[in-house]
């Protein structure tokens, strides 16, 4: 049984932390599967809604999905259905790029495990950022689920200045990752 399947089984027994760990492992392949919808819809909302519905399913039905990475496959199909419905609702189906649909949408790439070396490089690069850009980007990377207005206020910036500082910070971070040879890491593809 894969790590993802073990975490899913634990989540189905009501273990919320295991569900969070499962979500952390499947989020990337789910998001990647939505690349074809990137021009048509807000994929962030679809990812979150998919994960939320997977929790609801885990509690309602238990571990009824069978096969290796079955929960991930199920989540990918659910995400694509939600995305398609959203594109239709917004009348933006024409912006979906079917040429980017994987040959076998049932076989998503699984997420690589965390890489300690990559983490050290990221931490080093963030540490090297300059004042306001560092404060803003750190706030967003660590607490980006909080409204920007709240985050901006916590670092004594207006929302617009906060956003400008994040973009500055991202550019500096990208340069540093490139200089350290980390920009082509699998996690970024």
């Amino acid at each position, binding site marked *: 049984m894969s790590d993802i399947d073990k975490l899913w089984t634990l989540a189905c027994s009501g273990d919320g932390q295991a569900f969070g760990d499962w979500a*952390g492992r499947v989020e990337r392949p789910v998001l990647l599967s939505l690349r074809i919808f990137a*021009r048509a819809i807000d994929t962030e909302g679809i990812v979150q809604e998919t994960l939320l519905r997977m929790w609801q399913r885990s509690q309602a039905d238990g571990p009824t999905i069978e096969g290796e990475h079955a929960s991930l496959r199920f989540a990918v199909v659910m995400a694509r259905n939600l995305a398609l419905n959203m594109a239709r609702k917004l009348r933006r189906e024409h912006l979906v790029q079917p040429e980017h649909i994987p040959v076998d949408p049932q076989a998503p790439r699984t997420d690589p495990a965390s890489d300690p070396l990559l983490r050290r490089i990221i931490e080093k690069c963030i540490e090297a950022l300059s004042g306001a850009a560092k404060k803003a980007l750190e706030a967003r*990377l660590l607490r980006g689920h909080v409204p920007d207005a709240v985050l901006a206020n916590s670092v004594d910036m207006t929302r617009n200045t906060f956003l400008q500082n994040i973009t500055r910070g991202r550019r500096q971070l990208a340069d540093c990752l490139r200089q350290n040879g980390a920009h082509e890491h699998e996690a970024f593809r």
Partner: protein
Amino acid sequence: MSPDDRQEVLIEATIGAHRVLDADGLPIPPPEWWDLSPEACQMAFESRMRSRAIERELHPRGWSTSVQAVMERLHL
């Protein structure tokens, strides 16, 4: 602010994981998302993907801010 800088800020406003919910409880895009061209939406997607990878590495359990947003919605 140059047009490129303005677009960069608009894109950045859509990369955060916070989403307001509509009457049906579904996440809705930030207001800035509607001002993005399809090409800019694609750029936002790629930037968001890179950001989530970094967030996962920085979180002790590997939870990106998207996962943290869901955990908060579920009160887990």
